[in-house]
């Protein structure tokens, strides 16, 4: 009769291994797979709207089609960094200080960095067409670059080593300071002279003069990229949970080995 403990991958019986190999391993679930399919379909529709069906701009012509990826990515990046700050505050303020908040904060920041990078690159390409240059050191571009560098620094701080709780605490403090850059970036075009145009929609002083389908495509892009963010966040924070579990187990094994050597 086989008396191997159940559940541990190294000691399971052949039958249990077969059952586990049939069951899907990874960070996906039925819900995330369905969300993934929806996101892919929405991306295809967004591409159709942005590249084909929406009208060209009166002044910028077809270059406005870059807006449908440039604007949603920076807005989702703002949201990602704000979520990082909220999770960080929640982690610091909670009595139990669940590391799950820290992992969501870290995952959100990483995705935010990706989207800021995309926004900077697409903005640079758009600038080449409209301003004749890939880069100028104006307020909006410079502050956005600072935002990118700050959060790359945040990700580096998370990798400095130490216990998971030390990582969580120092990262949380940094996140709460870094988030203050977001209003600086967003209002930079109003506070200082900037080549970058002011907000076309999220501006209480501006009349929204976008064509109907252009406006719909822009908001559709915001929704699509937000769902992309949600999908990525679900997967990435689960990956971080697995990394923490594996590193904790490795530490436990190392401690046990030292104890056995000492005996």
């Amino acid at each position, binding site marked *: 009769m086989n008396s191997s403990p159940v559940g541990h991958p190294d000691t399971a019986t052949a039958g249990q291994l077969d059952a586990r190999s049939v069951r899907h391993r990874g960070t996906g679930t039925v819900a995330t797979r369905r969300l993934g399919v929806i996101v892919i379909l929405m991306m295809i529709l967004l591409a159709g709207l942005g590249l084909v069906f929406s009208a060209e701009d009166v002044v910028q012509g*077809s270059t406005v089609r870059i807006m449908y990826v440039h604007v949603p990515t920076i807005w989702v990046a703002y949201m990602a960094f704000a979520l990082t700050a909220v999770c960080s505050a929640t982690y610091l303020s909670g009595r139990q200080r669940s590391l799950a908040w820290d992992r969501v904060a870290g995952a959100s920041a990483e995705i935010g960095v990706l989207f800021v990078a995309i926004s900077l690159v*697409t903005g640079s*390409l758009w600038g080449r067409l409209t301003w004749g240059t890939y880069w100028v050191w104006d307020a909006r571009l410079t502050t956005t670059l600072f935002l990118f560098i700050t959060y790359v620094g945040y990700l580096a701080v998370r990798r400095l080593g130490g216990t998971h709780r030390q990582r969580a605490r120092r990262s949380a403090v940094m996140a709460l300071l870094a988030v203050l850059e977001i209003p600086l970036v967003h209002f930079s075009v109003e506070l200082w002279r900037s080549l970058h145009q002011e907000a076309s929609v999220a501006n209480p002083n501006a009349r929204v003069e976008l064509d109907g389908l252009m406006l719909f495509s822009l908001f559709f892009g915001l929704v699509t990229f937000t769902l992309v963010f949600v999908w990525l966040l679900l997967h990435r924070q689960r990956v971080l949970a697995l990394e923490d579990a594996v590193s904790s187990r490795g530490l436990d094994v190392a401690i046990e080995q030292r104890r056995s050597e000492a005996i």
Partner: protein
Amino acid sequence: MEHASFILLSWALSLGGTALYAWWVVRRGSQLSEHATDEEMPWT
């Protein structure tokens, strides 16, 4: 479409960059889950 190369490059970098990151995350998750126990994967 005027300036098609720049516009399509913007879209390709946006969607391609996102897809590449998504692929890396899922792959990393699959690799780590090979060594994880059921308790460490509560979402399954």
